[in-house]
């Protein structure tokens, strides 16, 4: 519809010059007054200035003009005008230029007919025309609020008409024209605006009909006077209820308020209904408040509209279709002038666009639909047999030393929605769990197990997505490294050692306890035959025990704490060296073989006599540190045969294996802390001129002339013949307590206060072959068995550990060390446990002396 409309419009525009041409033909024969008139129009109206239009067309032109103004507001009027134009135009089109003359003739004929009518009639018609025009304008006013310009125009035109009326010689043929145009209007209504515009149109119609009906009758005969007709509201198209509160309804042309006509009460209404036969067709005009009686045509129109028929009676719906615009190509052009050249040539701008498109297509920037579809199909992942075999891989560049991400840990029983009851938290556990809120990593479980009766009741898990996200982050952000994880059982780390059962004999049970001392027993020493045991204690006594019975044979009182007792290894002598305070006592216990005992006494006596001669030759350094003395009579009776008075307190005394030499240690003695004395010659010497540190212990090598000297951290081995240092053993410990040498002389055991026992293989290295951490606290005593491959250690944790320490003759074979048995029978005393450990010289038995003033014998 819209298209047609615009088409029409364009056509109409084209036709304007033509339509203006044909009336010129009519005018040619007219008076010059007309020219004047045109001139006036020219001067006033810019629109019509260039057109020399016929007067008869004035109406239409006027309408057109108003149309220009209204266009935007109301389409109905617009279309009305279009149709009118169309009328002209179609006529012209049909006739074409060739038929022009014929057309003129017919027009003339028509004119002649109208001429026949009387002048009065003419006048009347003119009047009518004016009225109709005014009505039209009123319609437009209905829509626009009285445009002042329009009003001006109208008034001017009215004047013109008056002028014309005076002329009276103008041929009038527009009545038929108007009628025709009215018809077209209706058609246009139906076709263009449809039902929605019906009401609007209806309003217009009623008014026009009203006018028509009034004009058909005598002008003043009807009750509607022309004065009343003039009542026109200038308020425009506004909701009339705005005037509800006022007495007036609006303002007329002169600006006077239109007073609301009196509306009678209901009785009046009733009376009107009863009396007035036309009451049913009386309608109130909301604009003026006047009653309007509808004409027959209006009634018919309304009825037709109600019946949903085309309102115009005369319109034939089934009329044959007139093809106004033929589809056939006419031979002759529509227009007089030939087509411009450019209409035959392709458009440059279009060509440019097309070339751009072609280029884009070539470059692949744009794609045809088929291409696009193909691409889309390609974009979807296409799967195919990527791997030809299951486990064979193709050679290609791959990530360097790939570390596969660890798999997620799988949930256990506790995570179940219905776990076994023992997995649920009890109150205590729940409390604990809640307490660790601030440090969730310490929690045993990171959730509280819960039980649900059925699967249905398990709620959704809100953290699921978050957890998956965290896993994603782990996969690409978490640094990966290969960590070796042991899958072995802890037992596999324990070295495989031969079973102790296979390494028998070794002491297994506590056999005898030697009780009698009143204070800690610091030291013990079995005699070379293994029958007797000497022990020295803090209660200043030395006791001699019979090993087999546990009987104390002798108690020798000394003046000071006994720190060390050592039985002379020479079996021909019955002599015990006792370190008591700063005196070293050599005592003959008088146990065992009587012959040996008495012989010892005589030997010692002879020796003392020799010594007295040589006493003068002793160097000053030695003389100041040690003094050989004869015991007093009382002491002699106690068994003390020789007495060496040292300048410092003696902590240790040790015999050379031959039993002639013995060494004493005075840790406080600085460079005189080690003293080697010869019993036979009653002579002492200081082997070291320089202090190497706090000397802890010294030992003679069982076979060779070597002296082991343990300072606080190191063990030095000196060759006594060559008078030089042979070796320095690095113990790597803080404080050495004591040491023991293997009877073969190749291995050395060093006990330290920092809980270690170090096994040195002297042939191997200066570092310990093995560090044994058998004890929990300081190790105070360590001993080798003379005949069995056994060694024992005693420490402050009250334990005595007997171990198998096999030394092989084969140099390539390392010693075998197996801890065999642990005894813990001593009672604690001032944090001291076992002080000294000694093996029985013949049997696989071990003695231990403890802080609890007892000595214990463990036998196999």
């Amino acid at each position, binding site marked *: 519809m819209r298209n047609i409309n615009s088409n029409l419009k364009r056509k109409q525009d084209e036709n304007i010059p033509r339509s203006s041409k044909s009336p010129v033909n009519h005018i040619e024969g007219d008076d010059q007054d007309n020219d004047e008139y045109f001139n006036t129009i020219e001067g006033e109206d810019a629109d019509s200035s260039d057109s020399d239009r016929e007067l008869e067309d004035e109406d239409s032109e006027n309408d057109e003009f108003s149309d220009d103004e209204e266009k935007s507001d109301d389409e109905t009027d617009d279309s009305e005008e279009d149709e009118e134009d169309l009328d002209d135009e179609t006529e012209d089109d049909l006739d074409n230029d060739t038929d022009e003359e014929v057309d003129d003739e017919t027009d003339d004929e028509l004119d002649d007919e109208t001429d026949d009518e009387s002048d009065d009639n003419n006048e009347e018609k003119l009047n009518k025309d004016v009225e109709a025009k005014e009505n039209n304008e009123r319609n437009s006013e209905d829509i626009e609020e009285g445009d002042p310009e329009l009003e001006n125009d109208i008034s001017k035109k009215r004047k013109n008409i008056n002028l014309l009326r005076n002329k009276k010689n103008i041929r009038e043929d527009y009545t038929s024209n108007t009628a025709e145009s009215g018809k077209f209007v209706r058609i246009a209504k139906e076709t263009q605006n449809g039902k929605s515009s019906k009401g609007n149109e209806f309003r217009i119609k009623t008014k026009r009909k009203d006018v028509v009906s009034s004009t058909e009758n005598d002008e003043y005969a009807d009750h509607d006077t022309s004065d009343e007709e003039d009542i026109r509201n200038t308020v425009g198209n506004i909701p009339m209820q705005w005037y509800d509160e006022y007495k007036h309804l609006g303002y007329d042309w002169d600006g006077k308020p239109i007073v609301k006509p009196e509306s009678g009460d209901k009785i009046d209404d009733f009376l009107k209904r009863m009396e007035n036969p036309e009451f049913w067709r009386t309608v109130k005009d909301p604009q003026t408040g006047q009653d309007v009686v509808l004409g027959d045509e209006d009634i018919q129109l309304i009825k037709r509209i109600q019946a949903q028929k085309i309102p115009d009676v005369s319109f034939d719906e089934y009329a044959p279709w007139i093809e106004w615009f033929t589809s056939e190509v006419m031979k002759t052009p529509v227009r007089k002038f030939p087509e411009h050249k450019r209409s035959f040539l392709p458009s440059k701008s279009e060509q440019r666009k097309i070339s751009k498109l072609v280029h884009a297509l070539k470059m692949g920037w*744009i794609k045809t639909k088929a291409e*696009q579809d193909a691409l889309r199909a390609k*974009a979807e992942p296409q*799967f195919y*047999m*990527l*791997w030809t075999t299951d486990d064979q891989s193709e050679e*290609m*560049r*791959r990530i*360097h030393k790939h*570390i596969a*991400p660890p798999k*997620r840990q*799988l*949930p256990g*029983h506790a*995570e*179940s*929605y219905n*776990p*076994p009851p*023992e997995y649920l938290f009890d109150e205590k556990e729940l409390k604990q769990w809640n307490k660790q809120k601030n440090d969730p990593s310490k929690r*045993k479980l990171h*959730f509280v197990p*819960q039980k*649900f*009766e*059925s*699967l*249905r009741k*398990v709620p959704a*898990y809100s*953290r*699921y*997505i978050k*957890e*998956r*996200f965290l896993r*994603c*982050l782990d996969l*690409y*952000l978490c*640094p990966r*490294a290969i960590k070796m994880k*042991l899958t072995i*059982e*802890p037992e596999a*780390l*324990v*070295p495989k*050692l031969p079973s*102790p059962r296979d390494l028998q004999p070794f002491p297994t049970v506590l056999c005898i306890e030697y009780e009698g001392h009143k204070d800690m027993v610091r030291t013990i020493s079995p005699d070379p035959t293994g029958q007797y045991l000497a022990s020295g204690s803090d209660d200043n006594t030395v006791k001699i025990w019979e090993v087999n019975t546990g009987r104390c044979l002798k108690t020798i009182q000394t003046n000071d704490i006994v720190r060390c007792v050592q039985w002379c290894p020479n079996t021909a002598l019955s002599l015990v060296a006792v370190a008591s305070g700063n005196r070293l006592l050599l005592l003959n216990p008088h146990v065992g073989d009587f012959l040996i005992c008495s012989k010892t006494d005589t030997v010692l006596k002879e020796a003392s006599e020799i010594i007295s001669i040589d006493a003068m030759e002793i160097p000053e350094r030695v003389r100041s540190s040690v003094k050989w003395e004869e015991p007093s009579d009382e002491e002699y009776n106690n068994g003390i045969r020789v007495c060496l008075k040292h300048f410092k307190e003696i902590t240790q005394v040790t015999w050379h294996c031959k039993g002639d030499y013995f060494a004493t240690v005075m840790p406080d003695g600085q460079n005189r802390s080690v003293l080697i004395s010869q019993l036979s010659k009653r002579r002492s010497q200081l082997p070291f001129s320089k202090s190497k540190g706090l000397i802890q212990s010294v030992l003679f090598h069982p076979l060779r002339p070597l002296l082991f000297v343990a300072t606080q951290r190191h063990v030095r081995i000196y060759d006594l013949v060559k008078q030089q240092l042979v070796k320095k053993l690095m113990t790597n410990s803080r404080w050495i307590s004591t040491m023991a040498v293997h009877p073969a002389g190749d291995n050395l055991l060093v006990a330290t206060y920092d809980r270690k026992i170090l096994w040195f293989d002297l042939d191997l290295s200066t570092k310990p072959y093995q560090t*044994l951490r*058998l004890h929990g606290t300081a190790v105070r005593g360590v001993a080798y068995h003379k005949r069995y491959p056994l060694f024992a250690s005693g420490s402050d944790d009250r334990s005595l550990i007997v171990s198998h320490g096999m030394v092989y003759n084969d140099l390539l074979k390392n010693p075998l060390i*197996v*801890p*065999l*048995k*642990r005894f813990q029978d001593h009672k604690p005393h001032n944090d001291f446990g076992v002080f000294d450990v000694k093996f029985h010289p013949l049997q696989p038995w071990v003695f231990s002396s403890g802080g609890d003033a007892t000595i214990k014998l463990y036998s196999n």
Partner: protein
Amino acid sequence: MVAHRKKKYSTGEGAQFISRKAALKKLQLSLNDFRRLCIIKGIYPREPRNRKRAQKGAPGIKMLYHIKDIQFLLYEPIIWKLREYKIFNRKVGRAKAVKDFKAMRRYLANHPTIKLDHIVKERYPSFIDALRDLDDCLTLCFLFSTFPSLPHIPRTQSDLCRRLSMEFLHAVIEAKAFPIVASYSTYTIGFMPEIEYGIFACCYYYQAEIKGQTITWIVPHHFSFEPQSKAEVDFKIMSTFVEFYTIMLGFVNFRLYHTLNLFYPPKFAIMDNPNEGEKALADENIFVAERVAALNIPLSKSVLGGEEETEIDNFDLQENAEATEEARKEIESIKVLKNLFKGMKFFLNREVPREPLVFIIRCFGGEVSWDKSLFIGATFGETDESITHQIVDRPSMEKKYISRYYIQPQWIFDCVNTRSLLPVSKYFMGEILPPHLSPFVDKDRDENYIPPEERALYDQDAVEQMHKEESADESDKESPNKEEEDEEDLNENFKDVEVSDDKKVKLGVTPGQIEKEAPWKKKREERQEYKLREKMIKKKHRNLYKSMMNAKRERGKQAWLLNKKRKLHDEKEKVKTKSKKKINN
């Protein structure tokens, strides 16, 4: 000429590692592009042995990549695609800014696409490798298949995830249909609701063994999607992962289907709706329904008539006798598993989670259906008389059929986990369910607590013991009499002893008695020996041993605690049942 001094960190760890910033500079990529590339190519930072040296003495902790990894990335064709993407984005942005929408549309239609096929092959040299790494892939795909349309997640992606995850499930179901494949593709399916941080998640853990690789995947409930805050979850990263995983899963599926003699884009034997996927997007519920329905439909096979059983031939090879015997046993067990639910017809009530149940029942050869009016794909109705089991998850039902068992869904899961048909009596409707045990716990671990229910599964004696305990409650009344009898017996014995003593005195000769060593003594001795031996552990291993022993002790403590709790619980239960009985009496 003076020899140049060697620069620090030009060799060794310092030269082996590169920080992320340096890597970005070297690759000339933005951080986002680099992240994407790393995810797709599977490049990850590595932990250096000596961090200080690796980050060239810089303080703090840097993200370090191996230099070879970055060099590996340098030759990746995808980098060019990423650069193209950058330019594409710039073009689109410009077109948008100048409102040249036509050009913008054209650009958008021609967006660059990244092909990842070669990367799948590069990251997973063999099919087995791909299967080994399938866990995360499946879990994420199953998650994405439940996602609605989200920003950063293209709709096609979640759609593809749906398709592929479904196909994988089908492959698992079908794996048994062909014994050739099944002979080295057995599957154990476990079910486990996961609980974390006190909030309970019901997600299903599945474990299937395909080609000797154990694949575990987690499937959330289809309603598990919850909007996540931007700070919490970055869907863009997950989407990048899924971008790769979909391709990988697609290829895995393809190979699986072909080894199973199935058409790859699967053809369902009965239903074939090509537009199913699109329709599914419209409604979440419909999607789930159709997904489950599809599970219930067998796939059509490319080779027909593959139902015959494979028999292992009896080769008379002495050396392989044991192996063949084992293989035969395995095949036998697979056969049993395949037919675990054979001949059973299950009907799922509406409140039951359908997806896992349908999948499992179909895996083990059962027939499933559900209410026709609720979800599509039902094969038979509730009124079918041949239904053997109806799975319900409600306390009671109005209308019941006598011909079938009304059991709770846990029965299915427990049956599958124990690989046998459990007695249904404990799982009847409204019964208090026995505990649901995790099938994933390591049974061989020492010092591990094994709940009695689990022990009963593997140990027949334990079952009897449990029964005895139960029956003991009932026979409490009889027991006092027994005790009296026992006492009498004892008295008699005592008399005998006295008599014999008298006799001994009379004879005056006592036969020599073998001294029996108390067993505890021997044990103690052994323990002591072991303790001494423990002290001989090398210094190198001492701490390790200590920590291992501590862990062991801790486990033992846990087991002991659980045991104690269980005992207390059982006693309580006993008291309760007794009091109930009394009340009843």
